[in-house]
Protein backbone atom coordinates (compact mmCIF):
# COMPACT_ATOMS: atom_id res chain seq x y z
CA UNK A 1 0.00 0.00 0.00
CA UNK A 2 1.37 3.41 -0.94
CA UNK A 3 0.96 5.58 2.12
CA UNK A 4 0.56 9.28 1.55
CA UNK A 5 -0.11 11.33 4.65
CA UNK A 6 -2.95 13.84 4.61
CA UNK A 7 -0.72 16.90 4.75
CA UNK A 8 2.31 15.90 2.71
CA UNK A 9 1.40 14.65 -0.76
CA UNK A 10 1.91 17.82 -2.75
CA UNK A 11 5.38 18.42 -1.42
CA UNK A 12 6.19 14.74 -1.81
CA UNK A 13 6.40 15.15 -5.56
CA UNK A 14 10.05 15.66 -6.46
CA UNK A 15 11.01 18.95 -8.14
CA UNK A 16 11.58 17.37 -11.55
CA UNK A 17 7.94 16.25 -11.55
CA UNK A 18 6.56 19.28 -9.77
CA UNK A 19 7.98 21.62 -12.41
CA UNK A 20 5.65 19.97 -14.95
CA UNK A 21 2.73 19.80 -12.51
CA UNK A 22 2.77 23.09 -10.57
CA UNK A 23 -0.77 22.76 -9.22
CA UNK A 24 -2.05 22.61 -5.67
CA UNK A 25 -2.92 19.06 -4.67
CA UNK A 26 -6.30 18.78 -2.98
CA UNK A 27 -7.91 15.79 -1.33
CA UNK A 28 -11.44 14.66 -0.65
CA UNK A 29 -12.63 11.54 1.15
CA UNK A 30 -15.01 9.75 -1.20
CA UNK A 31 -16.78 6.54 -0.16
CA UNK A 32 -14.08 5.98 2.45
CA UNK A 33 -11.15 6.53 0.09
CA UNK A 34 -9.01 9.63 -0.17
CA UNK A 35 -9.16 11.06 -3.68
CA UNK A 36 -6.54 13.46 -5.00
CA UNK A 37 -7.54 16.21 -7.41
CA UNK A 38 -6.50 19.50 -8.94
CA UNK A 39 -8.97 22.39 -8.90
CA UNK A 40 -7.72 25.52 -10.64
CA UNK A 41 -9.42 28.67 -11.92
CA UNK A 42 -12.95 30.00 -11.94
CA UNK A 43 -15.87 29.67 -14.29
CA UNK A 44 -17.89 26.77 -15.62
CA UNK A 45 -16.04 23.61 -14.64
CA UNK A 46 -14.16 21.37 -17.04
CA UNK A 47 -13.70 17.91 -15.54
CA UNK A 48 -10.70 16.06 -16.96
CA UNK A 49 -10.83 12.27 -16.53
CA UNK A 50 -7.91 9.91 -17.06
CA UNK A 51 -7.75 6.15 -17.47
CA UNK A 52 -5.29 3.32 -16.88
CA UNK A 53 -2.44 3.68 -15.81
CA UNK A 54 -2.25 7.46 -15.77
CA UNK A 55 -3.32 10.20 -13.35
CA UNK A 56 -4.15 13.88 -13.46
CA UNK A 57 -0.58 14.52 -14.61
CA UNK A 58 -1.84 13.44 -18.05
CA UNK A 59 -3.71 16.74 -18.25
CA UNK A 60 -0.88 19.00 -17.05
CA UNK A 61 -0.91 20.97 -20.33
CA UNK A 62 -4.70 21.18 -20.48
CA UNK A 63 -5.07 22.73 -17.04
CA UNK A 64 -3.35 26.12 -17.60
CA UNK A 65 -4.74 26.50 -21.11
CA UNK A 66 -8.36 25.88 -20.07
CA UNK A 67 -7.93 27.94 -16.90
CA UNK A 68 -6.56 30.89 -18.85
CA UNK A 69 -9.59 30.66 -21.13
CA UNK A 70 -11.88 31.29 -18.18
CA UNK A 71 -12.74 27.85 -16.89
CA UNK A 72 -12.53 26.13 -13.53
CA UNK A 73 -10.45 23.05 -14.32
CA UNK A 74 -10.81 19.96 -12.15
CA UNK A 75 -8.73 16.82 -12.65
CA UNK A 76 -9.18 13.97 -10.15
CA UNK A 77 -7.10 10.81 -9.81
CA UNK A 78 -9.33 7.72 -9.82
CA UNK A 79 -9.05 5.72 -6.62
CA UNK A 80 -6.08 3.42 -7.10
CA UNK A 81 -4.13 5.87 -9.29
CA UNK A 82 -1.85 8.86 -8.96
CA UNK A 83 -1.89 10.40 -5.51
CA UNK A 84 -5.26 8.92 -4.54
CA UNK A 85 -5.61 6.00 -2.12
CA UNK A 86 -4.58 2.53 -3.23
CA UNK A 87 -6.92 -0.06 -1.76
CA UNK A 88 -5.08 -3.36 -1.60
CA UNK A 89 -7.76 -5.86 -2.59
CA UNK A 90 -8.85 -6.59 -6.14
CA UNK A 91 -12.38 -7.29 -4.95
CA UNK A 92 -12.69 -3.69 -3.74
CA UNK A 93 -12.82 -2.53 -7.34
CA UNK A 94 -15.60 -2.53 -9.86
CA UNK A 95 -16.71 -0.22 -12.64
CA UNK A 96 -19.79 0.57 -10.58
CA UNK A 97 -17.67 1.59 -7.58
CA UNK A 98 -15.56 3.88 -9.76
CA UNK A 99 -18.70 5.51 -11.16
CA UNK A 100 -20.07 5.94 -7.64
CA UNK A 101 -16.79 7.49 -6.50
CA UNK A 102 -16.87 10.01 -9.33
CA UNK A 103 -20.56 10.78 -8.82
CA UNK A 104 -19.91 11.46 -5.14
CA UNK A 105 -16.89 13.61 -6.00
CA UNK A 106 -19.05 15.72 -8.34
CA UNK A 107 -21.82 15.96 -5.76
CA UNK A 108 -19.47 16.97 -2.94
CA UNK A 109 -17.94 19.75 -5.05
CA UNK A 110 -21.41 20.93 -6.04
CA UNK A 111 -20.45 21.09 -9.69
CA UNK A 112 -22.91 22.34 -12.30
CA UNK A 113 -22.62 23.25 -15.98
CA UNK A 114 -19.86 20.65 -16.25
CA UNK A 115 -17.90 19.89 -19.38
CA UNK A 116 -16.52 16.39 -18.94
CA UNK A 117 -13.45 15.47 -20.99
CA UNK A 118 -12.80 11.75 -20.89
CA UNK A 119 -10.36 9.22 -22.30
CA UNK A 120 -9.93 5.48 -21.68
CA UNK A 121 -11.66 4.57 -18.35
CA UNK A 122 -12.54 8.23 -17.97
CA UNK A 123 -15.17 7.43 -20.61
CA UNK A 124 -17.32 4.80 -18.91
CA UNK A 125 -17.01 6.59 -15.55
CA UNK A 126 -17.53 10.15 -16.74
CA UNK A 127 -20.22 9.38 -19.29
CA UNK A 128 -22.11 7.33 -16.70
CA UNK A 129 -22.11 10.34 -14.38
CA UNK A 130 -23.37 12.51 -17.24
CA UNK A 131 -26.31 10.27 -18.13
CA UNK A 132 -27.14 9.79 -14.42
CA UNK A 133 -27.39 13.56 -13.90
CA UNK A 134 -27.70 15.17 -17.33
CA UNK A 135 -28.92 18.44 -15.86
CA UNK A 136 -25.48 19.01 -14.33
CA UNK A 137 -23.62 18.72 -17.61
CA UNK A 138 -23.06 21.37 -20.23
CA UNK A 139 -21.01 19.29 -22.65
CA UNK A 140 -19.16 16.02 -23.07
CA UNK A 141 -15.90 15.46 -24.91
CA UNK A 142 -15.02 11.87 -25.72
CA UNK A 143 -11.51 10.82 -26.74
CA UNK A 144 -10.13 7.29 -27.34
CA UNK A 145 -12.65 5.48 -25.17
CA UNK A 146 -15.78 3.31 -25.38
CA UNK A 147 -19.24 3.01 -23.86
CA UNK A 148 -20.69 -0.35 -24.89
CA UNK A 149 -20.36 -3.97 -23.80
CA UNK A 150 -18.66 -5.38 -26.90
CA UNK A 151 -14.84 -5.54 -26.85
CA UNK A 152 -12.63 -4.22 -29.59
CA UNK A 153 -10.43 -6.64 -31.51
CA UNK A 154 -7.50 -5.45 -29.39
CA UNK A 155 -9.28 -6.36 -26.15
CA UNK A 156 -10.49 -9.68 -27.50
CA UNK A 157 -7.09 -10.94 -28.57
CA UNK A 158 -5.04 -13.32 -26.44
CA UNK A 159 -1.87 -11.66 -27.69
CA UNK A 160 -1.09 -9.36 -26.07
CA UNK A 161 -4.08 -8.03 -24.17
CA UNK A 162 -5.79 -11.04 -22.59
CA UNK A 163 -2.47 -12.76 -21.90
CA UNK A 164 -1.28 -9.64 -20.11
CA UNK A 165 -3.97 -9.78 -17.46
CA UNK A 166 -4.66 -13.53 -17.37
CA UNK A 167 -4.66 -15.22 -13.96
CA UNK A 168 -1.17 -15.41 -12.42
CA UNK A 169 0.30 -13.76 -15.54
CA UNK A 170 -1.40 -10.46 -14.69
CA UNK A 171 0.09 -9.96 -11.23
CA UNK A 172 3.49 -10.87 -12.63
CA UNK A 173 3.44 -8.53 -15.63
CA UNK A 174 1.48 -5.61 -14.21
CA UNK A 175 2.62 -5.62 -10.61
CA UNK A 176 6.05 -7.26 -10.41
CA UNK A 177 7.24 -6.00 -13.81
CA UNK A 178 5.13 -2.82 -14.03
CA UNK A 179 4.73 -3.26 -17.77
CA UNK A 180 2.11 -0.60 -18.40
CA UNK A 181 4.32 2.10 -16.97
CA UNK A 182 7.67 0.78 -18.15
CA UNK A 183 6.58 -0.12 -21.67
CA UNK A 184 2.86 0.24 -22.34
CA UNK A 185 2.76 4.02 -22.11
CA UNK A 186 5.81 4.36 -24.35
CA UNK A 187 4.20 2.15 -26.98
CA UNK A 188 1.00 4.21 -26.80
CA UNK A 189 2.32 7.67 -27.59
CA UNK A 190 3.59 9.11 -30.86
CA UNK A 191 6.19 11.56 -29.54
CA UNK A 192 8.20 9.01 -27.59
CA UNK A 193 11.44 10.87 -26.87
CA UNK A 194 9.56 13.80 -25.38
CA UNK A 195 7.39 11.44 -23.39
CA UNK A 196 10.34 9.59 -21.87
CA UNK A 197 12.09 12.79 -20.86
CA UNK A 198 9.15 14.79 -19.58
CA UNK A 199 6.35 12.46 -18.52
CA UNK A 200 7.53 8.94 -17.80
CA UNK A 201 9.18 9.86 -14.46
CA UNK A 202 5.84 11.17 -13.16
CA UNK A 203 3.94 8.02 -14.10
CA UNK A 204 6.73 5.87 -12.69
CA UNK A 205 6.85 7.88 -9.46
CA UNK A 206 3.31 6.98 -8.39
CA UNK A 207 3.70 3.27 -9.21
CA UNK A 208 6.84 2.47 -7.28
CA UNK A 209 5.94 -0.85 -5.69
CA UNK A 210 3.95 -4.01 -6.23
CA UNK A 211 0.89 -3.00 -4.22
CA UNK A 212 0.60 0.46 -5.78
CA UNK A 213 0.14 -1.13 -9.23
CA UNK A 214 -2.87 -3.27 -8.39
CA UNK A 215 -5.38 -1.21 -10.36
CA UNK A 216 -3.29 -1.39 -13.52
CA UNK A 217 -4.21 -5.07 -13.75
CA UNK A 218 -7.71 -4.83 -12.24
CA UNK A 219 -9.04 -2.34 -14.79
CA UNK A 220 -8.23 -4.61 -17.77
CA UNK A 221 -10.23 -7.41 -16.15
CA UNK A 222 -13.23 -5.10 -15.87
CA UNK A 223 -13.49 -4.74 -19.65
CA UNK A 224 -16.35 -7.05 -20.61
CA UNK A 225 -15.66 -9.63 -23.29
CA UNK A 226 -18.87 -11.66 -22.96
CA UNK A 227 -22.44 -10.72 -22.05
CA UNK A 228 -22.18 -12.29 -18.57
CA UNK A 229 -18.88 -10.62 -17.63
CA UNK A 230 -18.61 -8.12 -14.82
CA UNK A 231 -19.31 -4.60 -16.10
CA UNK A 232 -21.23 -5.89 -19.14
CA UNK A 233 -24.64 -4.93 -17.76
CA UNK A 234 -23.43 -1.48 -16.75
CA UNK A 235 -21.80 -0.91 -20.12
CA UNK A 236 -25.01 -2.02 -21.83
CA UNK A 237 -26.99 0.40 -19.67
CA UNK A 238 -24.51 3.17 -20.51
CA UNK A 239 -24.84 2.60 -24.24
CA UNK A 240 -28.62 2.62 -24.08
CA UNK A 241 -28.60 5.76 -21.94
CA UNK A 242 -26.31 7.57 -24.36
CA UNK A 243 -28.79 6.91 -27.17
CA UNK A 244 -31.16 9.24 -25.33
CA UNK A 245 -28.50 11.75 -24.34
CA UNK A 246 -28.90 15.25 -25.75
CA UNK A 247 -25.97 16.89 -23.97
CA UNK A 248 -23.85 18.72 -26.56
CA UNK A 249 -20.92 16.52 -27.47
CA UNK A 250 -17.54 16.66 -29.16
CA UNK A 251 -15.61 13.63 -30.41
CA UNK A 252 -11.81 13.94 -30.63
CA UNK A 253 -9.77 10.92 -31.68
CA UNK A 254 -6.13 9.98 -32.15
CA UNK A 255 -5.16 9.21 -35.71
CA UNK A 256 -2.70 6.57 -34.50
CA UNK A 257 -5.01 5.00 -31.90
CA UNK A 258 -5.10 1.18 -31.98
CA UNK A 259 -6.79 0.31 -28.65
CA UNK A 260 -10.02 2.00 -29.68
CA UNK A 261 -9.66 2.25 -33.46
CA UNK A 262 -11.42 4.72 -35.73
CA UNK A 263 -14.63 2.68 -35.86
CA UNK A 264 -15.10 3.43 -32.14
CA UNK A 265 -15.18 7.15 -32.92
CA UNK A 266 -17.80 6.44 -35.58
CA UNK A 267 -19.78 4.37 -33.09
CA UNK A 268 -19.89 7.37 -30.74
CA UNK A 269 -21.10 9.43 -33.68
CA UNK A 270 -23.92 6.93 -34.15
CA UNK A 271 -24.75 6.99 -30.44
CA UNK A 272 -24.58 10.77 -30.29
CA UNK A 273 -25.60 11.92 -33.77
CA UNK A 274 -25.69 15.53 -32.64
CA UNK A 275 -22.02 15.38 -31.66
CA UNK A 276 -19.43 17.50 -33.42
CA UNK A 277 -16.61 15.47 -34.94
CA UNK A 278 -14.85 13.18 -34.92
CA UNK A 279 -11.92 15.56 -35.09
CA UNK A 280 -8.69 13.70 -35.75
CA UNK A 281 -5.47 14.72 -34.03
CA UNK A 282 -1.98 13.28 -33.92
CA UNK A 283 -2.12 10.79 -31.11
CA UNK A 284 -1.97 7.20 -30.12
CA UNK A 285 -3.94 5.93 -27.11
CA UNK A 286 -2.64 8.67 -24.80
CA UNK A 287 -3.40 11.47 -27.20
CA UNK A 288 -3.23 14.02 -24.37
CA UNK A 289 0.56 13.46 -24.37
CA UNK A 290 0.80 13.93 -28.12
CA UNK A 291 -1.50 16.84 -28.99
CA UNK A 292 -2.53 18.73 -25.85
CA UNK A 293 -2.65 22.20 -27.40
CA UNK A 294 -4.53 21.08 -30.50
CA UNK A 295 -7.11 19.22 -28.38
CA UNK A 296 -7.52 22.21 -26.05
CA UNK A 297 -8.08 24.38 -29.08
CA UNK A 298 -10.84 22.06 -30.29
CA UNK A 299 -12.46 22.00 -26.84
CA UNK A 300 -12.35 25.77 -26.45
CA UNK A 301 -13.69 26.39 -29.97
CA UNK A 302 -16.50 23.93 -29.30
CA UNK A 303 -17.43 25.51 -25.95
CA UNK A 304 -17.25 29.00 -27.44
CA UNK A 305 -19.61 27.97 -30.22
CA UNK A 306 -21.95 26.43 -27.67
CA UNK A 307 -21.95 29.65 -25.65
CA UNK A 308 -22.69 31.64 -28.79
CA UNK A 309 -25.54 29.31 -29.68
CA UNK A 310 -23.83 28.18 -32.86
CA UNK A 311 -23.52 24.65 -34.07
CA UNK A 312 -19.81 24.01 -34.54
Amino acid at each position, binding site marked *: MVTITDNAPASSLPPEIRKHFPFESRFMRVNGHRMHYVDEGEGDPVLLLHGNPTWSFLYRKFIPRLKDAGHRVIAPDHIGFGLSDRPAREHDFSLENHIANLAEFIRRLGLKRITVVCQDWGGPTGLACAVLNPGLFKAIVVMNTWAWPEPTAFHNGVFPWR*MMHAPVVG*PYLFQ*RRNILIERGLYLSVVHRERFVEEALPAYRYVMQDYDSRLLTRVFPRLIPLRPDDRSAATMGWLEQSLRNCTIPALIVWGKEEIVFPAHCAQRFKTLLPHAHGPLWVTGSHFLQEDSPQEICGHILDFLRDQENGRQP
Partner: protein
Amino acid sequence: MSIEIVALAEIRTQNCRRIFVMMEDRLGHYPGFREALVEAFKLTPAHADGGAPGYFRAASGREYEVVFTSRSGHRFPSGLEINALVAGFDAIEPDATDEDLWRFLEWLIPRVGGEWTLEALKATGKVYKIPWA
Protein backbone atom coordinates in the same frame (compact mmCIF):
# COMPACT_ATOMS: atom_id res chain seq x y z
CA MET B 1 11.28 -29.11 -17.26
CA SER B 2 12.33 -25.94 -15.52
CA ILE B 3 9.67 -26.19 -12.82
CA GLU B 4 9.27 -29.19 -10.58
CA ILE B 5 6.25 -29.68 -8.34
CA VAL B 6 7.56 -31.15 -5.12
CA ALA B 7 6.04 -32.60 -1.98
CA LEU B 8 6.33 -30.98 1.40
CA ALA B 9 8.69 -33.73 2.53
CA GLU B 10 11.17 -32.77 -0.17
CA ILE B 11 11.23 -29.10 0.69
CA ARG B 12 13.64 -27.38 3.02
CA THR B 13 11.16 -25.56 5.23
CA GLN B 14 13.11 -25.73 8.45
CA ASN B 15 14.84 -22.46 9.27
CA CYS B 16 13.31 -20.94 6.16
CA ARG B 17 11.57 -17.62 5.89
CA ARG B 18 8.54 -17.19 3.66
CA ILE B 19 8.72 -14.02 1.57
CA PHE B 20 5.61 -12.94 -0.31
CA VAL B 21 6.35 -12.47 -3.99
CA MET B 22 3.00 -12.48 -5.79
CA MET B 23 -0.73 -12.89 -5.31
CA GLU B 24 -3.64 -13.73 -7.62
CA ASP B 25 -7.15 -12.94 -6.37
CA ARG B 26 -9.16 -14.19 -9.31
CA LEU B 27 -7.94 -17.52 -10.62
CA GLY B 28 -11.39 -17.97 -12.10
CA HIS B 29 -11.11 -14.90 -14.33
CA TYR B 30 -10.27 -17.44 -17.03
CA PRO B 31 -11.30 -20.78 -15.47
CA GLY B 32 -8.76 -22.87 -17.36
CA PHE B 33 -6.02 -21.45 -15.17
CA ARG B 34 -7.67 -22.70 -12.00
CA GLU B 35 -8.29 -26.11 -13.53
CA ALA B 36 -4.66 -26.42 -14.64
CA LEU B 37 -3.43 -25.66 -11.13
CA VAL B 38 -5.93 -28.07 -9.54
CA GLU B 39 -4.61 -30.83 -11.74
CA ALA B 40 -0.92 -30.00 -11.39
CA PHE B 41 -1.03 -29.65 -7.60
CA LYS B 42 -3.61 -32.43 -7.17
CA LEU B 43 -5.92 -30.19 -5.19
CA THR B 44 -9.16 -31.48 -3.69
CA PRO B 45 -11.91 -29.61 -1.83
CA ALA B 46 -10.26 -30.81 1.39
CA HIS B 47 -7.36 -28.47 0.68
CA ALA B 48 -9.71 -25.56 1.30
CA ASP B 49 -10.08 -26.68 4.90
CA GLY B 50 -6.60 -26.62 6.33
CA GLY B 51 -4.81 -28.59 3.63
CA ALA B 52 -1.11 -28.20 2.92
CA PRO B 53 0.20 -25.60 0.47
CA GLY B 54 1.78 -26.62 -2.79
CA TYR B 55 5.49 -26.28 -3.48
CA PHE B 56 7.65 -25.95 -6.55
CA ARG B 57 11.34 -25.82 -7.26
CA ALA B 58 12.70 -23.71 -10.08
CA ALA B 59 15.62 -24.75 -12.27
CA SER B 60 17.69 -22.30 -10.25
CA GLY B 61 17.17 -24.53 -7.22
CA ARG B 62 15.14 -21.89 -5.42
CA GLU B 63 11.95 -23.15 -3.85
CA TYR B 64 8.52 -21.60 -3.53
CA GLU B 65 5.36 -22.20 -1.54
CA VAL B 66 1.99 -21.82 -3.26
CA VAL B 67 -0.83 -21.03 -0.83
CA PHE B 68 -4.22 -21.65 -2.38
CA THR B 69 -6.98 -19.43 -1.09
CA SER B 70 -10.73 -19.77 -0.97
CA ARG B 71 -13.48 -17.18 -1.24
CA SER B 72 -17.20 -17.62 -0.61
CA GLY B 73 -19.14 -17.74 -3.84
CA HIS B 74 -16.15 -18.86 -5.90
CA ARG B 75 -14.83 -22.33 -6.71
CA PHE B 76 -11.73 -23.48 -4.85
CA PRO B 77 -9.07 -22.34 -5.29
CA SER B 78 -10.23 -18.80 -5.94
CA GLY B 79 -6.74 -17.40 -5.63
CA LEU B 80 -3.15 -18.09 -4.71
CA GLU B 81 -0.17 -16.54 -3.01
CA ILE B 82 3.38 -17.42 -3.95
CA ASN B 83 6.05 -17.14 -1.27
CA ALA B 84 9.76 -17.61 -1.76
CA LEU B 85 11.35 -19.94 0.77
CA VAL B 86 14.58 -18.34 1.86
CA ALA B 87 17.08 -19.84 4.25
CA GLY B 88 17.69 -18.07 7.52
CA PHE B 89 18.20 -14.37 7.10
CA ASP B 90 19.44 -14.52 3.50
CA ALA B 91 18.39 -11.69 1.21
CA ILE B 92 16.10 -12.22 -1.75
CA GLU B 93 17.21 -11.17 -5.22
CA PRO B 94 14.21 -9.66 -7.07
CA ASP B 95 15.49 -10.29 -10.59
CA ALA B 96 16.30 -13.90 -9.79
CA THR B 97 12.82 -14.29 -8.33
CA ASP B 98 11.30 -12.72 -11.42
CA GLU B 99 13.15 -15.17 -13.64
CA ASP B 100 11.87 -18.09 -11.56
CA LEU B 101 8.32 -16.75 -11.75
CA TRP B 102 8.58 -16.30 -15.51
CA ARG B 103 9.63 -19.95 -15.77
CA PHE B 104 6.61 -20.81 -13.62
CA LEU B 105 4.38 -19.01 -16.14
CA GLU B 106 6.07 -20.88 -19.00
CA TRP B 107 5.31 -24.10 -17.14
CA LEU B 108 1.71 -23.10 -16.40
CA ILE B 109 0.49 -21.79 -19.75
CA PRO B 110 0.77 -25.03 -21.77
CA ARG B 111 -1.15 -26.78 -18.99
CA VAL B 112 -4.00 -24.33 -19.43
CA GLY B 113 -3.92 -25.09 -23.14
CA GLY B 114 -6.36 -24.11 -25.86
CA GLU B 115 -5.87 -20.52 -26.94
CA TRP B 116 -3.34 -19.99 -24.13
CA THR B 117 -0.09 -20.87 -25.85
CA LEU B 118 3.54 -20.59 -24.87
CA GLU B 119 4.11 -18.66 -28.07
CA ALA B 120 1.54 -16.05 -27.05
CA LEU B 121 3.12 -15.74 -23.61
CA LYS B 122 6.61 -15.33 -25.04
CA ALA B 123 5.43 -12.86 -27.66
CA THR B 124 3.73 -10.82 -24.95
CA GLY B 125 6.86 -10.97 -22.83
CA LYS B 126 8.98 -9.78 -25.73
CA VAL B 127 6.72 -6.81 -26.44
CA TYR B 128 6.99 -5.79 -22.81
CA LYS B 129 10.74 -6.42 -22.59
CA ILE B 130 10.71 -9.33 -20.16
CA PRO B 131 14.38 -10.37 -20.29
CA TRP B 132 13.68 -14.11 -20.16
CA ALA B 133 10.99 -14.18 -22.85
